[in-house]
């Protein structure tokens, strides 16, 4: 654990705690000194802190490679030791955790840099400069928590990060806590943050039960200890319970059916947050958890089938909703849920490499898409700003009164032909789109294909998964095509769209890195002899992985489906672009089905009717009727107080005349002299009741003692 040792061995495992320390140092600097620092300086400190964590991740991966992937644990401090319960702050460096570290800190750092540009404009539009610093403090805290999550050596340390990132998510979704997404005064954003936290807590509840069950059956929470014990006593009943409880946690954090409802609302957060937390990193924690627990999930087939089906159903369900959305970020949000479904389905079918591969590829292209969408939204904002302040009344009125509503810069119906005004963003967005749609040779093609191939190969044991995913893949290409045509092609549907402005390099340059990864990220794990890099790397952790060769059948079908979907989207949205005010052409074609998609299948309304409203009613009944009116008032007055009154009268009347009265009078007199308000307290209560009750006790005692 010291530097000289490291110098001689040339390895850097002892640096593992710095994955957490660097971001914490960054946030502390900004918290303590940030008030006097410029925006640039604050952003730079935060980015460097995140970048330093990336450097540590690289060093760890390098060192791990040097020891041929042999698991390393780095103990840091003791935590909770009670009897058999032995929990420590111990870091775990293995091939799975290093992949996660690299993705998190790598993508995280790029997003930090992008956010310097983005938040500068965001705070300008919201007219509150001070919050710039707070944003970066939260962002660094997120990186620290995410690092704890992926590098912890026990389920409980993972859980610390798990809840910690949930906190950051809450804080950042509600970052503009006094507005709604359109910048109007409202609690909407704060509500969205709360919803995310509570939905996640429901998941965490399941996770906690899994932890308890694990501990009492396997006697430890340390990963290897649990896996060894599970291998020694593979009780299917216990392991099913553990894995299914854990699955509740996965559906919360990774936004799967039925707990996904928080993620679309989470788009209330600033766009870099949507990209980092709600697309690239935090939401993949559930996938990580399943892969991490592979030795448990692989024991019980029924549990893994449930995981796979949840993932596949989510993938399809969310994709249908994405088709009916108009908000550029909402489409991406549902797309994220859908893609997480792909990953969960993959790890459910035991395709751990494919799941992690898609996790990484998705982190690249979805971060790219979100950040490009942020660029689009800010471009529209700039256009709006330009019209409002740059021109005369006419433009101002026009800009503010699109349909008599507050102008929504994220509504795709307000856009059109943006590729002319924002060419850089357009190309970036297109790269992300093709990767997401799974077009050869972009990253998504390789990773999604691997999932589909695995699902197809295991179709016998996991019936239905492949088909659900294939349809979802078709819809993915369709809604992304719809988005491209609506946003970047056709004619500008508003004045604002005509005046949209391209984003500065501080935002576009990090995007180019991401675009590079989205295009070439497939190289992580190509399905050719000698190119299964990720697969072999992960083998160190999850055991032998079969190298899947490219299956032309599966790849051909999915490519065909994607191309068909894009063509279809062109027919509907590209050939005859939507005009301002025109309803979505699909509405006519699909009727009530489209209404369902548009309205997210009324799931939020369903939750309100089934969970939220009854809870409100229950809370009202318990607190007002039962606790207050009945228990606090009636029961107290009638029963308890009434009894005391009766008892006091019963005991004091015969005796009160004599000694007690004299003593009490003397006491009352004493207090009367000492103060006015003390006398008020002596309104006969203490005298008559308390004293005489005491007297009663003495009487009973006397009886007991001298009987």
């Amino acid at each position, binding site marked *: 654990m010291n530097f000289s040792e490291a110098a001689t061995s040339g390895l850097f495992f002892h640096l593992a705690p710095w994955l957490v320390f660097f971001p914490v140092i960054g946030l502390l600097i900004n918290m303590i000194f940030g008030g006097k620092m410029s925006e640039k300086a604050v952003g730079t400190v935060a980015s460097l802190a995140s970048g330093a964590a990336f450097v540590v991740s690289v060093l760890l991966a390098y060192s791990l490679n040097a020891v041929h992937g042999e698991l390393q644990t780095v103990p840091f401090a003791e935590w909770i030791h*009670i009897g058999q319960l032995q929990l420590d702050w111990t870091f775990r460096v293995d091939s799975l955790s290093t992949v996660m570290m690299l993705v998190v800190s790598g993508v995280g750092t790029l997003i930090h840099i992008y956010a310097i540009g983005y938040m500068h404009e965001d705070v300008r539009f919201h007219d509150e400069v*001070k919050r710039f610093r707070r944003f970066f403090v939260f962002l660094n805290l997120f990186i620290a928590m995410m690092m704890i999550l992926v590098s912890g050596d026990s389920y409980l340390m993972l859980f610390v990060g798990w809840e910690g990132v949930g906190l950051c998510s809450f804080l950042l979704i509600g970052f503009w806590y006094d507005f709604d997404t359109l910048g109007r005064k409202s609690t909407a954003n704060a509500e969205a943050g*709360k919803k995310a936290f*509570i939905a996640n807590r429901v998941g965490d509840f399941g996770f*906690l039960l899994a932890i308890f*069950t694990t501990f*009492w059956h396997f006697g430890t929470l340390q990963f290897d200890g649990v896996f060894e014990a599970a291998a020694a006593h593979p009780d299917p009943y216990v392991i099913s319970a553990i894995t299914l409880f854990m699955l509740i946690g996965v559906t919360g954090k990774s936004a799967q059916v039925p707990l996904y409802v928080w993620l679309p609302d989470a788009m209330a957060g600033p766009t870099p947050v949507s990209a980092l937390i709600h697309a690239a990193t935090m939401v993949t924690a559930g996938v990580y958890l399943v892969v991490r627990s592979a030795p448990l999930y692989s024991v019980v087939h029924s549990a893994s089938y449930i995981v796979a089906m949840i993932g596949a159903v989510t993938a399809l369900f969310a994709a249908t909703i994405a088709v009916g959305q108009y908000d550029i970020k909402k489409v991406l949000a549902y797309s994220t849920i859908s893609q997480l479904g792909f990953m969960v389905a993959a790890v459910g079918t035991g395709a751990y490499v494919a799941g992690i591969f898609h996790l990484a590829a998705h982190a690249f292209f979805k971060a790219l898409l979100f950040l490009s969408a942020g660029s689009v939204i800010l471009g529209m904002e700039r256009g709006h700003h330009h019209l409002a302040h740059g021109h005369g009344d006419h433009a101002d009125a026009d800009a503010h009164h699109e349909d008599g509503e507050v102008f929504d810069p994220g509504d795709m119906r307000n856009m059109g032909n943006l590729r002319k005004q924002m060419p850089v963003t357009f190309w970036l967005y297109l790269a992300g789109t093709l990767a997401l749609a799974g077009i050869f040779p972009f990253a998504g093609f390789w990773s999604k294909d691997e999932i589909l191939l695995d699902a197809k190969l295991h179709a016998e044991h996991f019936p239905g998964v492949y088909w659900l995913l294939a349809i979802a893949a078709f819809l993915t290409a369709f809604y992304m095509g719809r988005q491209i045509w609506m946003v970047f092609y056709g004619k500008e549907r508003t004045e604002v769209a005509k005046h949209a402005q391209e984003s500065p390099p501080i935002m576009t340059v990090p995007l180019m890195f991401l675009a590079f990864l989205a295009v070439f990220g497939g190289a992580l794990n190509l399905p050719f002899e000698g190119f299964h890099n990720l697969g072999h790397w992960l083998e160190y952790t999850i055991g032998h992985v079969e190298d899947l060769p490219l299956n032309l059948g599966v790849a051909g079908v999915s490519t065909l489906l994607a191309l068909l979907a894009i063509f279809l989207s062109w027919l509907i949205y590209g050939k005859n672009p939507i005009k301002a005010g025109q309803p979505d052409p699909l509405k006519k074609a699909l009727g009530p089905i489209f209404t369902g998609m548009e309205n997210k299948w009324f799931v939020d309304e369903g939750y309100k009717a089934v969970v939220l409203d009854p809870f409100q009613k229950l809370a009202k009944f318990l*607190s007002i009727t039962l606790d207050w009116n009945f*228990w606090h008032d009636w029961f107290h007055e009638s029963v308890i107080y009434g009894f005391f009154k009766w008892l006091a009268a019963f005991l004091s009347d015969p005796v009160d005349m004599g000694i007690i009265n004299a003593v009490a009078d003397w006491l009352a007199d004493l207090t009367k002299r000492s103060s006015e308000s003390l006398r008020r307290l002596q309104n006969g209560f203490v005298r008559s009741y308390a004293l005489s009750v005491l007297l009663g006790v003495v009487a009973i005692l006397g009886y007991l003692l001298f009987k």
Partner: protein
Amino acid sequence: MDFMSNPLNVVTFFPLIGVLLLLFVNKENKVLIRWISLLTALATFGLSLWLLSQFQPANPNLQLTINESWIQVANWNISYYMGVDGLSILLVLLTAFLTPIALLSTWSAIEEREKDFNIFFLLLEAGMLGVFMAQDLFLFYIFWEFTLVPMYFLIGIWGGPQRIYASIKFFLYTMAGSLLMLLAILWLGIHQGTFAVPDLIRMGGIPAETQIWLFLAFAIAFAIKVPMWPLHSWLPDAHVQAPTAGSVILAGVLLKMGTYGFIRFNLPLFPKAAIHFAPMMAGLAVVGIIYGAIVSYYQQDIKKLVAYSSISHLGFVMLGLFALNSQGIQGGILQMINHGLSTGALFLLVGMVYEQTHTRDFDVYGGLWKIMPVYGSIMLVVTLSSMGLPGLNGFVGEFTILLGAFGSEAIGSPWFAGLSAIGVILAAVYMLYMYQKIFLGPTGSIVETVKEHGHALRDLSAREIITVAPLLIFIFWIGLYPKPFFELIAPAVDNLVAILQAAMH
């Protein structure tokens, strides 16, 4: 050891020196009054650290004991018996730690009759310290009842509009419970020939049937104090009406006297009964956890929300204690401390904004984070601590409690802990509701109202930050590195668990 230099006596009675000094100070000399009582409380805290330095963590027995024969009439053997062990040392420290903090908070909150206030407060401190150190049942009872009086006056004189009602209710409920306990104490002392708790434990030999009755007599007194559902209806009144410092001590220490009573007397004295009642007590604890959480959510008054949340939190403590295993009991003891820190801090913080706004109605609040960023950030940490976020103190306690209860042999079913874990969800529901109502959203009408009265809402002053900062340090410390705290608790708990195990098999 010499009677007067025994650390326990020194710590317990040191506050009385402050009381004596205060008696000779002119009541108009407010600055002097404040400083005398604050310095007395700080010195008491310093002395409690001195006590800690002489405490041997590895020793599971009572330490630094003092045992003098006191009242000997007929077959009554009452002794002046004081001692600390792992079950009580942290509570002694907590008491000595919270008192100066609570006193510091009164500098701007209490403006009438400060002399009397400070005298009562120091008397209360001495009483509480005595409760946690007394090892003779009779002595314990004297300290126990003694704490009632100053608290009664603190609520009744310096409380809110309904203070008389609240203080009487507080007095009535606690005393009603205590009387049954007194009977049990007398029976036990006379029947067994001693009131000394360690002797009684050593002797054992109380038949299981008798244990049940004695257990119940003690339990009712303690359950009212905790308060356990359904004996809680005095709590919202007392908390809402008490002045800030009173609420801090009430939540921070006085409620712990109830949970402490269970662990000091009910478990080791009546182990068979404790095992017998474990599922029932756990059941009541679970109801309290869920009920308290749901009722908290539907409050309109900030203080009332925090008061009801205490019912939920102390439900966790009770669940841990009656798991009757080391995880549960250690977690329960730690959670007593955690609740003292977190809820103490919540009451302090609510009091700080109340001093400026004079209202605790949620509806007029909103968006204060913007106006009071330091206040908002500190409150955020405390809120998260209270809802058990990992990395902060509340989690360590709740987790170990739930873990212990989940596998508890005495409770006999993981369902209790499983249901209680729903309380973890509900805690997020009501705590975030509170946080959002006060700090998030657009700024509330209170900002304008305060302005109309010629002020503007200001962020926390340096004194206010100093008041809460020590609590924050422990919130992080216990959350990240609870080892030193568990080390103090563990040996004594192992001892207790051994007694319970022996009774079980």
